[in-house]
């Protein structure tokens, strides 16, 4: 208490201190006054836009067609029957699955490799987490520089290793451009999995492993019998959080391929962005974003429910 300055002195009589009318009102409403600014801001910039976009998605709001007439489900239908929209959803799911699986496995192996102390562990730790603090745009840019023909050294290194002349256009040639995009994402977000899983691993009591070792249980079996069950909730948390972010994939696509060639690397976010901001079909784009939002909400609900159930048990 000694270092905390409290200005209001207790009156000698011990009676309750007198407050002004305002202070008393503020004191009674205190808990609501504290949440008010944040809640108002979120309402203004997230809930109001959502409602607004619901309205826009049922009317004509297109910079190329004048007037704002009610059009019913037309905007939704146009998006649902757009083949590009469908392929963008499929690609989003594919990227999400590929990214999350690779990042999870790599992150787990990294965490297992880093859980025991060794000399220089602190430095290695600091290097491993660096990608988390870099803008995805720059990550995309860096990988583009590394892979790009003719500037990047990747093809040269591959040629030297394989002994044949490798001439891959990593950012325009299918399937290589998918590798490029996944690599950039894996590079940036594997540390995310790693950090969470490492925290989970460190929390497992060491004496469990010691007991297993005394009983002559091998490393592989103690991994499945001790590590996996104890790490379960953390694994679920890491995968859930990562999955919810990776379905928003946009920045690296924008910088590395621009959605191209053609519409080959359109993710859901990229598709909706071009629909709204380069073609200016605003009402189609809002209708599409509502569909995307509902799909996302389904994933969120299922995953977060699972997560809460695990945490409670």
């Amino acid at each position: 208490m000694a270092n905390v300055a409290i200005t209001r002195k207790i009156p000698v009589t011990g009676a309750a201190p007198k407050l002004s009318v305002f202070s008393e009102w503020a004191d009674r409403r205190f808990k609501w006054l504290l949440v008010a600014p944040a809640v108002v801001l979120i309402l203004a910039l997230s809930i109001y836009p959502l409602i607004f976009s619901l309205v826009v998605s049922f009317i004509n709001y297109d910079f190329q067609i004048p007037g704002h007439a009610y059009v019913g489900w037309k905007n939704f239908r146009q998006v649902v029957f757009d083949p590009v929209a469908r392929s963008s959803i499929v690609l989003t799911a594919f990227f999400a699955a590929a990214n999350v699986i690779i990042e999870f496995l790599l992150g787990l192996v990294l965490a297992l490799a880093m859980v025991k102390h060794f000399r220089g562990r602190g430095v290695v730790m600091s290097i491993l987490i660096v990608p988390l603090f870099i803008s995805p745009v720059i990550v995309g840019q860096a990988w583009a520089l590394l892979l790009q023909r003719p500037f990047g050294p990747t093809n040269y290194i591959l040629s030297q290793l394989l002994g044949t002349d490798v001439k891959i256009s990593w950012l325009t040639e299918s399937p290589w451009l998918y590798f490029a995009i996944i690599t950039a994402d894996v590079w940036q977000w594997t540390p995310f999995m790693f950090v969470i899983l490492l925290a989970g691993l460190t929390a497992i009591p060491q004496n469990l492993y010691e007991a297993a070792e005394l009983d002559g249980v091998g490393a592989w079996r103690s991994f499945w019998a001790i590590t996996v069950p104890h790490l379960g909730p953390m694994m679920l948390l890491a995968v859930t959080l990562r999955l919810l972010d990776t379905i928003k994939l946009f920045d690296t696509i924008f910088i590395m391929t621009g959605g191209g060639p053609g519409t080959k690397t359109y993710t859901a976010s990229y598709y909706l962005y071009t629909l709204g901001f380069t073609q200016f079909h605003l009402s189609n784009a809002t209708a599409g974003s509502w569909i995307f939002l509902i799909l996302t909400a389904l994933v969120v609900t299922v995953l977060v429910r699972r997560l809460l159930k695990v945490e409670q048990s």
Partner: protein
Amino acid sequence: MTATVQPARKRLRRRPAFGRFVFLGFYLLFVLAPLYWVLITSIKPSNDYLAVPPVWFPSEPTFIHYTVSLFAYRGLKGLTNSLIISLSATVLSALLGTFMAYSLARFNTGGKHLSFWVLSQRFLPPVAIILPVFLIYRNAGLHDTHVGLIIAYTVFTLPVSVWMMYAYFRQLPRSMEDAALVDGCTRWQAFWRVAMPLAAPGIVAAAVFAFIACWTEFFFALVLTSRDAFTLPTVFRAFIGFQGALYGEASALAIVSLAPSIALGILVQRHLVRGLTMGAVRG
């Protein structure tokens, strides 16, 4: 233990250790390769760009790309805008987030619904709200203004700030505040003069994470700004496709942009788990 068991176990232990370091070595190479290439490209004379074999270290390093990207490609303007916007949004987000978190943690305001409603905002895909926000901003005159992006970034970072501080306050004992109340403080004074100073380390960590999030953000800045309030990440649009081969310029600007956020991130790495999981894991 008999003597025959000992060497067997030793062998078992050493093999994984060796594999561990090989794996870590390769992974470190994977992490450092793009960073090294960007750094080298940023000081490489343009004549060396297309050399075969590639120039791994330029014999005559140059800083021309830094000046060109900062002055000719308006990198400096993006840098100052990024600083102004990120710092303002960080202060707002940390302050309002701490307010709300304190109320949630101490008074259970709004029950579980309010706290989970805030959390759910974190998972809202930006693309779902960006169009209406764009339209609203255009009508309100907030498009391409610092204030507009500051508000957007405050809202965008609030859920994480609130939840990080929510977890922090719940592990702080409330006896100090109770004592302050008994001593005649108002609730505001108990919060502002007692709880806030105690929570300062947590607030700083939350603020740093908010700053990094704003500093690296691209999507909102891309849509909500154009010629005036553009931030550093949006400047990279100029280098897409590299017409005229602006490899050096792109790399120089990348270095300028990533250096401060990496430095800050490593500074708060103790709090990283809490930041990434929004306080769910203490680490």
